[in-house]
């Protein structure tokens, strides 16, 4: 029953969020700040995770495919396709659900319990739209760039394995990541990331907006935001994959 109530509340909240702002000027003042906070400030973690995962994936793929029948470029190919299809969109979004989701939920939740949202409502401001729309818009716009960046850095991580070890030669790796490249995979990955970015930001905002109580409850809202957006990401991953790759 709760899941239906929450879904209904979420839909009603989104109806208030996804409307024209009261003042575009205020929206465009907030929007760049959110681009910086949600997008640019996520770059360091995206770089660190992607480069390590790219490198680890290359090593593991190589070690698990030691077979003279397999072509030498197969390690690069598998690493590339795994990064493109799954890691740089889904896994990255699951990680960002933790960082961005908890950030959004705790920020809006704190505003709720300190009556700042009530203050906006009393002024006659559409608080949901004012607070949430810039976050969703900024994160949805930044996410494809983060995904592309993650793909590039992840592939570089694999290349570094070739440079600093003798597990694979750089020539084999470079051949592998170029072999039988399907550009549609990048498109598929970007479509997924747009959906996930919307889910992460809107679900986190929902839990923050309806936080009730004190600091402990903001913590709970933040946890719920991360857990539920992660589950939704996995569910929509299956759905989109079925639709786009099947």
């Amino acid at each position, binding site marked *: 029953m709760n899941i239906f109530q929450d879904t209904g509340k979420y839909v009603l909240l989104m109806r208030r969020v996804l409307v024209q702002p009261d003042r575009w000027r205020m929206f465009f003042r907030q929007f760049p700040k959110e681009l910086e906070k949600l997008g640019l400030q996520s770059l360091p973690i995206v770089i660190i995770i992607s480069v390590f995962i790219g490198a680890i994936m290359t090593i593991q793929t190589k070690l698990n495919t030691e077979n003279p029948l397999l072509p030498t470029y197969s390690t690069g190919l598998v690493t590339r396709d795994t990064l493109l299809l799954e890691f740089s969109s889904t896994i990255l979004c699951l990680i960002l659900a933790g960082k961005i989701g908890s950030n959004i939920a705790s920020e809006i939740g704190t505003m709720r319990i300190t009556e700042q949202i*009530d203050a906006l409502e*009393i*002024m*006659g401001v559409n608080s949901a739209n004012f607070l949430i729309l810039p976050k969703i818009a900024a994160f949805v716009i930044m996410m494809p760039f983060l995904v592309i960046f993650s793909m590039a850095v992840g592939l570089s991580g694999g290349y570094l394995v070739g440079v600093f070890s003798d597990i694979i030669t750089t020539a084999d790796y470079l051949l592998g990541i170029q072999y039988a490249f399907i550009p549609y995979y990048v498109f598929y990955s970007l479509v997924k990331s747009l959906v996930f970015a919307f889910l992460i930001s809107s679900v986190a905002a929902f839990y923050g907006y309806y936080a009730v109580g004190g600091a402990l409850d903001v913590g709970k809202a933040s946890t719920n935001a991360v857990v539920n957006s992660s589950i939704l990401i996995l569910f929509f991953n299956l759905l989109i994959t079925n639709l786009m790759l099947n």
Partner: protein
Amino acid sequence: MIEVKHVDKSFDGNHVLKNVSAVFEDGKTNMIIGASGSGKTVLMKSIIGLHRIDNGQIEYDGRNLPDMRMKEIRLLRREVGMLFQGSALFDSMTVLENVMYPLEMFADTTKEEMEARARYCLQHVDLKEQSYGLPPSEISGGMQKRVAIARAIALQPKYLFCDEPNSGLDPKTSLIIDRLIHDITVEFNITTIINSHDMNSVMEIGENIIFINKGEKAWQGSKDDIFHVDNQDLNDFVFASELYKKVKKANA
């Protein structure tokens, strides 16, 4: 003027407000007093429209709030200023930006005019210029209340609501805030409603006092009348402390 007529409000079968009627006058500090759990906060939130009432009318100069659509309520709220118990200033903005915020949202003036108006409001509440660029977390509780008052009056509201305005303040600062609210009310002819259980405030600025007891309006009068009332619940509430017992005795 705000008129409340036969208002009822329940939560899950718990009848919190029972047939409450009251008149809150222009240019006066109207106070809602009562013990914790008496229903005064529910009454105030119902008047503002944060709670939907079960029965009755809440008229803002003849405009009945329960009959309004959300869009009309939003428009009405632009005529309302509110001072929250915890000030509710926006953390991400400076003091000056907090006061400019309602102007930027709703006033059709230039940025210079908005800033001038915000500065005027801040000067009006006696806040020093050095604090204008600071975030709210870096100023004292009393200063935060002043900023909140400045923000509440920035759009020249017709109605001002104050929820426990002296909560967390020392007696001297409380007195200053009380007088400030009273002076602003008189100067701008605002209908001010203050929700309080601070007897010092009641005695200082209570021009029209409504006593809520167990969800019902038990008494209405001024701070001068309060000494001569034969209402046991009111007397138990107002003259609970030794100090006020002595004050009453001296007054008698």
